């Protein structure tokens, strides 16, 4: 119990004291990145669509909920919807530079969301609350650290930022190459998509690149996951087997439990009724008291 209290403090003062400063700073930086990318998408996303404002609010809601529970896949799906219907307008927005900015912001958003969620698992304190309390107190809550600690954290932050920037550039180049595999104005095979599928080439491009990405993802996910799965310990394997068995038996178990509950309820009702009848019979109002007269 004492360990739990130490690892998960609840009061705000304790939480601020016990929070790891480097995690809080990284979380705040990722939150700022997410806000910047969110502002970019809310400005340019679905521009020209009939349900422009509603779609933007929907995107904002998904973005906020993604920070708490969901994965970035839903955000990617919304961006796919945007590209499918409105990509020619994106291409008009600044040409190749616009496309690069678009791809970079998308990758940056997904990266920041994933990083924020990972940091949130390590440190569950609210970044917004901490920032607000720091602003309200005028920085008086700030801790003082010696030079070696500051130097170590700064070096770690620089290394992490450099690695993230490299990853971002790599992902952007891969994404741009993937998009150039299927050209926007025509298809590789010279297929006339408008007459064949009633689709613009850009829409066809999204479907085609999505399918290619999906197949690559499925194969790589399959081999990586199955490789990891074979390293399970026997207790973990036992838990998995029991959970699968329980899932398969769930309907039967639910049926049995419901039937037993119904029987118990019926028995309790009968017992209650018999008790009520007995008390009614014995109650002083209904009992006939003979008088002497």
């Amino acid at each position, binding site marked *: 119990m004492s360990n739990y209290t130490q690892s998960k403090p609840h009061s705000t003062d304790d939480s601020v004291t016990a929070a790891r400063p480097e995690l809080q700073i990284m979380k705040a930086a990722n939150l700022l990145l997410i806000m910047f990318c969110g502002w970019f998408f809310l400005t340019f996303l679905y521009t020209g669509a009939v349900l422009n404002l509603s779609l933007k609010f929907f995107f904002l809601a998904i973005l906020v909920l993604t920070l708490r529970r969901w994965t970035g896949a839903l955000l990617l799906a919304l961006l796919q919807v945007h590209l499918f219907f409105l990509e020619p307008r994106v291409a008009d927005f600044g040409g190749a530079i616009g496309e690069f900015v678009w791809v970079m912001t998308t990758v940056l958003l997904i990266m920041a969301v994933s990083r924020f969620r990972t940091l949130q698992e390590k440190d569950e304190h609210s970044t917004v609350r901490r920032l607000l309390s720091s602003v309200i107190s005028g920085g008086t809550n700030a801790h003082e650290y010696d030079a070696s600690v500051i130097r170590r954290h700064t070096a770690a932050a620089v290394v992490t930022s450099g690695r993230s920037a490299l990853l971002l550039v790599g992902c952007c180049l891969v994404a741009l190459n993937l998009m150039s595999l299927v050209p926007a104005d025509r298809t590789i*095979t010279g297929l006339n998509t408008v007459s064949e599928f009633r*689709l613009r080439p850009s829409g066809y491009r999204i479907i085609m690149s999505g399918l290619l990405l999906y*197949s690559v993802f499925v194969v790589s996910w399959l081999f990586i996951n*199955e490789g990891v*799965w074979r390293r399970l310990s*026997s207790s973990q*394997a036992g838990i998995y087997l029991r959970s699968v068995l329980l899932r398969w038996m769930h309907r039967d178990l639910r049926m049995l439990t419901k039937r037993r509950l119904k029987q118990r309820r019926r028995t309790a009702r009968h017992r209650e009724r018999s008790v009520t009848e007995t008390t009614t019979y014995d109650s002083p109002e209904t009992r006939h008291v003979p008088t002497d007269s």
Partner: protein
Amino acid sequence: MFLLIREVAGWLLVLAALYLVSVGIDYVSNPEDARIVEAGVVMLAAMGILRAGILLVRISTAARICDREQP
């Protein structure tokens, strides 16, 4: 032996699903025989078969691990 048969069956299902994925891509990319809606249906079926195959493989792997550890 029974677990091995289950695992082989699971991998066969996974291979069938991957074949269906390739069929779906072929439906979309082939200009001679272009079918978008059919490609969607085939991909959905592929996803279902893939899930079933992976479930079989995982269960048989977990059962084999438990079996191996038992004295």
